[in-house]
């Protein structure tokens, strides 16, 4: 395709502006604000329409930017181009309410229908996207080396991996990864686990509750409430009658005692009173020990028997007599000693003997005294015996009643305890029953919640699947694109660089999506290249892409102020390559004269258009 003529009827600052272009090199010159970019965008708009954007960038879209300064109602242009031997005239009206496009083949005067308003069917892959990536080199690139290197790198890689310099694979994948993480964050897996534990716990509790209920039921069976109540009643009745009987007997006994008290003969005050009122369980006390001896007497018993003292006395007397007979034959001191001894013996014996005699006499009198007492007691005993027997009989009866009462009380107590126990078990059972209801309700809640969570997780997983699928597809496709386009692109770029600069360089795009250049030892990032080399690489990549996309079709290359930062040497290299090797049309928009000068110097033909006429 070769653009032959341009009519900027109403476009930006241009009003009925006409331009003719040559088949190879064209230099369109104009200072700043002369409208170079307008011409560039006019060509783009003619090919693809003036894009009206909504939302983002609405104010800076192409439509708004190039609305004619004069006469806003008219916004149109015409282009005449040659393609595959035929000449065509393309007309577009950009005005929003009258948007239209017409393509007429001037050779046949036939209107070529453009159903979607684009030239895509005309030339393969001739889309706006592709134009911008390849042959339309707009004036937007930054020329600072580092960011330019990065921009180039990004664009080249984007091209290689996505087929478009604008689409970024790495950030797209990152974006999807973020989505997946966001979905994961709200995941309910942890909750499900906790719920599972709670369910197990509930079931366990329920089982334990069931066992306890079973056990309690078993215990309850052992009791019969009616039975117990009956027993309780009977023992109560029994106790009542017992108590009454005891009362009656006690009454009788006390009457007896009163009677006995009145009948008994009064005894000497030394006598302990006969005790038979009061406790009927005490045996009447006679103040005697079991042996019949008065215990008082026992205490004052002499230490030695009486006869011993008698012996001592006789021994003393004898010793005296003997001494009287033999007193001359014994020395005086010894005689005195024997006398003393004799006297001692006699005195001791006499004293002891006398005392013993006294004691014996006292004992005898005591015994006689006791015997007298016995006699008197036995006398009253005789009277009381019959009383006593009666009393004893009553006592025994009383004792029996008391025994019976005790037994009944015991039974009553046991009954009460049993009844209490029964009631406790029954209460316990009612409580367990309530627990059962409570736990089984909780379990149901847990199961319901579990189901709800599972559903929620299922939905989340579906969502995650979508994200993962999108990601997988992107990766696969990127791989394919890299294979089919990226690699050849890198090769083409390398080839072109070689041809333009004469230097052999190999470019690749590695798996980390970085563009690398071979520096004869290793592959290093392209940012290591000099600024100039980067510029050339930039062009080479675009030209390479153009070749791959448009294949054999020749398409015009439009460069808007691309060489501003080139040094003279580089510029010469590039221009001479274009002039000698590039087969298609080249349209260079520039604000300098260098291009013209160099081309003149190379003796190359070119078409010159001055915008500032």
């Amino acid at each position, binding site marked *: 395709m070769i653009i032959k003529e341009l009519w900027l009827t109403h476009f930006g600052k241009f009003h009925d502006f006409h331009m003719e272009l040559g088949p190879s090199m064209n230099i369109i010159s104009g200072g700043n604000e002369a409208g170079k970019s307008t011409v560039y965008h006019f060509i783009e708009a003619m090919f693809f329409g003036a894009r009206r954007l909504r939302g983002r960038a609405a104010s800076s879209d192409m439509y708004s930017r190039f609305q004619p300064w004069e006469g806003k109602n008219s916004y149109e242009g015409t282009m005449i181009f040659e393609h595959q031997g035929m000449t065509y005239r393309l007309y577009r009206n950009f005005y929003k309410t009258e948007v239209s496009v017409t393509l007429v083949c001037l050779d046949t005067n036939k209107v070529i229908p453009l159903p979607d308003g684009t030239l895509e069917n005309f030339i393969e892959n001739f889309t706006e996207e592709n134009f911008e990536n390849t042959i339309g080199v707009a004036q937007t690139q930054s020329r600072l080396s580092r960011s330019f290197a990065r921009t180039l790198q990004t664009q080249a890689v984007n091209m290689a991996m996505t087929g478009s310099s604008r689409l970024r694979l790495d950030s797209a994948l990152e974006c*999807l990864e973020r989505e997946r993480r966001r979905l994961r964050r709200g995941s309910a897996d942890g909750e499900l686990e906790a719920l599972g534990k709670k369910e197990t716990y509930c079931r366990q509790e329920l089982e334990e509750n069931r066992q306890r209920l079973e056990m309690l039921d078993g215990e309850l069976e052992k009791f019969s409430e009616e039975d117990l109540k009956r027993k309780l009643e009977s023992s109560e009745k029994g106790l009542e009658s017992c108590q009454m009987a005891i009362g009656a007997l006690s009454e009788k006994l006390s009457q007896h005692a009163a009677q006995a008290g009145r009948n008994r003969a009064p005894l000497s005050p030394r006598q302990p009173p006969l005790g038979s009122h009061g406790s009927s369980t005490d045996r009447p006390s006679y103040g005697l020990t079991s042996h019949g001896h008065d215990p008082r007497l026992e205490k004052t018993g002499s230490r030695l028997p009486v006869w011993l003292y008698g012996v001592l006395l006789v021994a003393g007397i004898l010793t005296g007599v003997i001494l009287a007979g033999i007193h001359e034959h014994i020395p005086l001191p010894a005689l005195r000693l024997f006398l003393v001894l004799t006297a001692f013996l006699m005195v001791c014996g006499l004293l002891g003997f006398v005392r013993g005699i006294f004691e014996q006499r006292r004992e005898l009198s005591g015994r006689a005294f006791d015997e007298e007492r016995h006699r008197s007691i036995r006398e009253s005993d005789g009277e009381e015996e019959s009383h006593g027997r009666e009393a004893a009989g009553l006592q025994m009866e009383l004792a029996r009643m008391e025994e019976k009462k005790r037994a009944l009380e015991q039974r009553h107590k046991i009954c009460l305890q049993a009844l209490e126990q029964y009631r406790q078990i029954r209460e316990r059972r009612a409580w367990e029953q309530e627990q059962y209801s409570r736990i089984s309700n909780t379990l149901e809640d847990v199961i319901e919640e579990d189901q709800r969570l599972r559903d929620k997780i299922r939905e989340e997983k579906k969502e995650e699947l979508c994200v993962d699928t999108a990601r997988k597809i992107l990766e696969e496709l990127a791989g394919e694109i890299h294979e089919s386009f990226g690699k050849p692109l890198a090769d083409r770029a390398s080839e072109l660089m070689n041809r333009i600069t004469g230097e052999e360089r190999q470019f690749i795009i590695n798996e980390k999506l970085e563009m690398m250049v071979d520096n004869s030892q290793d592959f290093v990032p392209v940012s290591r290249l000099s600024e100039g080399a980067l510029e050339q690489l930039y062009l080479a990549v675009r030209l390479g892409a153009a070749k791959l996309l448009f294949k054999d079709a020749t398409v015009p290359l439009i460069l808007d102020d691309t060489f501003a930062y080139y040094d003279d040497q580089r510029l010469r290299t590039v221009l001479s390559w274009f002039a000698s090797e590039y087969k298609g049309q080249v349209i260079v928009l520039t604000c300098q004269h260098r291009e013209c000068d160099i081309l003149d110097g190379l003796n190359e033909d070119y078409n010159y258009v001055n915008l500032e006429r």
Partner: protein
Amino acid sequence: MRFFHLADVHLGAVPDKGTAWSDERARGIYESFYQVLETARLEQVDGVFICGDLFHRQPLLRELKEVSYHFARCAPVRIFIIAGNHDPVTERSNYVNYSWPDNVIFFKGDACARTYISEWNCYIYGLSYHDREIIRPLYANLRPDLFGAAAPDSTHILLAHGGDSRHIPVHFNELENAGFDYIAFGHIHRPWLAKSGRIAYSGALEPVDKEDEGPHGYMEGEVTAKGVRVRFVPQATWTYVNLNVEINGQMSWEEIKDRAKQLMDRAVKPGRKAVFKVTIIGTRDMDMVWDLDELYRLGQVIQVTDASEYDIDIERLYSQNKDNLLGRFIERAKDLDMDEDMKKKVLYYGIRSLYDTGDR
């Protein structure tokens, strides 16, 4: 004779569990129920039929006591109860041994029984669920004359619960002609009245979960010489409201939220309370980033659905990007072997990720 027919009270249920208003809802169910009983007492209605699922789960003893107290209070109104699939009379249920006040008649058996109220010349029939599910059609072939002779000109009212395949399947046409003057149904939470007026679902007294949209309340009925006539009394305090918020690509997120809030405020009638299920429909800009969780904070919102579509022409996008990753992605995504809505999601995820990060 005048009666109230209600069912599916679900005392003890905690609707919208986990939200700030769930406790209020749970208490509200009790209050609504007691309100009906009070109304029955004040209006001196003759009978109240509670057709199953009075309780949401197995009732605790203390719950039975609380309800009993209220039943006793509204004497001499007679209360008739059957147990439903949510509160069946199981072996261990507290229903088994509970003794109700004198004005309450509980049809405890799993076979249909009847009771005669001479003051009304009316026979009331009913059976209780003893299991959570009953697949046998227990109401089929049920006729008043199967229970013996009946007094002349007497009315026959059947209290029933169920009507779907797992809860006593029913042939409504057959039942219409079984000889009952009125069949009071419970189980379906939406009120429904047959054309003949002879069979009715009173619906749940208050909506129990978010699927229970529309009006809720009970049936008020009268036995006249011409038969039984009922009308629906919408009493529920709470309603679930479906709210559609229409958006377009021009709206910002704040605007969308305000619109939603406006719609919510307008939808609530004074004295009533609403819980909203919000759906966003319309087109949204590719740039729009929103956090749907913020909608939950605008009011009592139980559910938010995003049914919006992206404001992009996929076909055009495809044709403009045929050779690059975006175009090829669209092509590949369209051919996926997935459900339509999942495919759409995949498409949007991919397009958005490329769009968000591209230099457009």
